[in-house]
């Protein structure tokens, strides 16, 4: 069959097909009155298979490239309408937080301990070193930053020093900074895991140095009552961001029986779910840090108790949640 006859025979079908795709892609009907009536939605799959066959015929008969491009485009658009993933619902979010996320953490328990070591060992080491020799802090922080750090935790300030507006400002800052750091830790994993490991060690060193210094300076109550509340969520969040990142790195370094790209793709699909759980943990941490930790009217004992409960909750959540079938 000659190309023109083929075109004439199917032109009306293709127009109705394209009109249906326009509606599906843009929601409402376009105002163009000249458009033919669209194909009923129920007939789209059958019409799509027919179009695929017409495309194959047109290719094997070597019809002109412009016709092939046109049919290819129609088939591609219909393919994207038919083969889309299921739409996520709120139920899926809930299930993710109550079961899927802790299950994924447990599945990567080995990586979790590696990341915990990469974070807590530098933290403890640096903390002890700076506690013994407080001047070491100057190898990490400028004199101005040290002065800021001291001013933040100097005893004697009252609750009046921070009002609701500044709590909100700090909440915004913790969201922007802490979750951003978590995401960067994850992203750095794709560089053979080096970026994630670096971020874990760096965070450990800085947090350890600040803790050691403030302890040596004797700001014990102001500092530890501040970090007690959100510590469990934030520190665990940092370690888990490292887990998500090292998953990517390990997939590239040791892909096993698949290609490196394929192995990276599979690891990324799990890793992105981990990092979403991390983001949820860090939002919770930022909320506690901005609105609870900063409140100096709460007695120290209550803050320490809340901190202990936080650690208990995090460990119970990560070890127990999602063990029973829903």
């Amino acid at each position: 069959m000659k190309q023109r006859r083929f075109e004439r025979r199917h032109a009306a079908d293709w127009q109705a097909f394209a009109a249906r795709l326009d509606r599906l892609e843009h929601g409402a009907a376009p105002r163009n009155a000249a458009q033919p009536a669209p194909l009923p939605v129920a007939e789209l799959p059958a019409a799509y298979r027919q179009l695929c066959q017409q495309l194959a015929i047109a290719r094997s008969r070597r019809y002109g490239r412009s016709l092939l491009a046109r049919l290819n485009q129609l088939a591609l658009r219909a393919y994207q309408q038919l083969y889309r993933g299921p739409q996520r619902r709120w139920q899926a979010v809930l299930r993710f937080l109550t079961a899927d996320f802790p299950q994924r953490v447990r599945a990567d328990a080995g990586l979790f301990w590696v990341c915990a070591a990469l974070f807590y060992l530098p933290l403890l080491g640096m903390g002890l070193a700076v506690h013994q020799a407080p001047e070491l802090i100057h190898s990490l922080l400028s004199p101005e930053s040290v002065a800021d750090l001291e001013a933040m935790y100097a005893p004697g300030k009252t609750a009046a020093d921070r009002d609701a507006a500044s709590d909100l400002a700090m909440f915004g800052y913790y969201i922007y900074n802490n979750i951003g750091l978590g995401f960067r830790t994850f992203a750095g994993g794709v560089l053979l895991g080096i970026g994630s490991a670096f971020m874990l060690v760096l965070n450990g060193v800085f947090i350890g140095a600040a803790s050691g210094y403030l302890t040596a300076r004797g700001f014990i109550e102001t500092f530890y009552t501040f970090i007690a509340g959100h510590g469990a969520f934030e520190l665990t969040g940092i370690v888990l961001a490292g887990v998500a990142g090292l998953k990517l790195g390990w997939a590239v370094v040791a892909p096993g029986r698949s290609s490196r790209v394929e192995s990276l793709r599979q690891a990324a699909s799990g890793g992105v779910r981990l990092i979403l759980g991390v983001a949820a943990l860090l939002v919770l941490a930022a909320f506690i840090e901005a609105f609870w930790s900063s409140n100096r009217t709460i007695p120290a004992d209550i803050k320490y108790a809340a901190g202990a409960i936080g650690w208990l909750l995090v460990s119970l959540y990560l070890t127990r949640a999602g063990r029973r079938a829903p």
Partner: protein
Amino acid sequence: MLQPTPALLDTIRRVETPEGVELSLRVAGPVARALAWGADSLIKYGALWGLLMALAVLDQGGFGLWLIALFLTEWFYPALFEVYAGGATPGKKALGLKVIHADGTPVDWPAALIRNLLRAADFLPVFYGFGLTAMLCNRDFQRLGDLAAGTVVIYRDPPAAPPRVPPGPALPPPFPMSPAEQQLLIDFAERSLTLNPARQVELAELLADATRLHGITGVERLRAHARWLVGDHA
């Protein structure tokens, strides 16, 4: 005689569908994507600047809200558009680009998040250094985020269709032609209208041995054969 066209060095990615037909996707290169990124940056930071001015009336608390907006924009602006606006941020839309899975299906949330969170790694060490290196190392121009997410950036629309061969006499070719040769001749007839006359003649001269015609009459003869081949002689 005419040679069948060899495999071309092009940027077409072929995807086989469950219906057993191959679809071709035109993958977009670094320049178009960088322009789209620039347009998106203008939109993002323009909007953030406006928001900063508007939230300034709220003083410190307003700044906190703005930082949250900054965080959301920095990490989720592209993913949001890629999932809910047909695979394209406003910048990509302006450049006629869209993001899809490498198998041709629309991007979903996990893939959009992976490619946009890993943007932070692509950006290293300076200004998308790793991203560009990765793009130049694979034939689908995927940056690290695309490789991990299994996505590609393609041109949304096919190139503009060439004009149809104007009506005129139709002549059967002087000898039987293979399908590949027929396609080549039709493509020439369609594309010739977008070429200048000297170039049309130059290309038609390649077949002067077969047509035994020179100059513009040679071009006309090839168009007549093309009309006959597509069936325009009704």
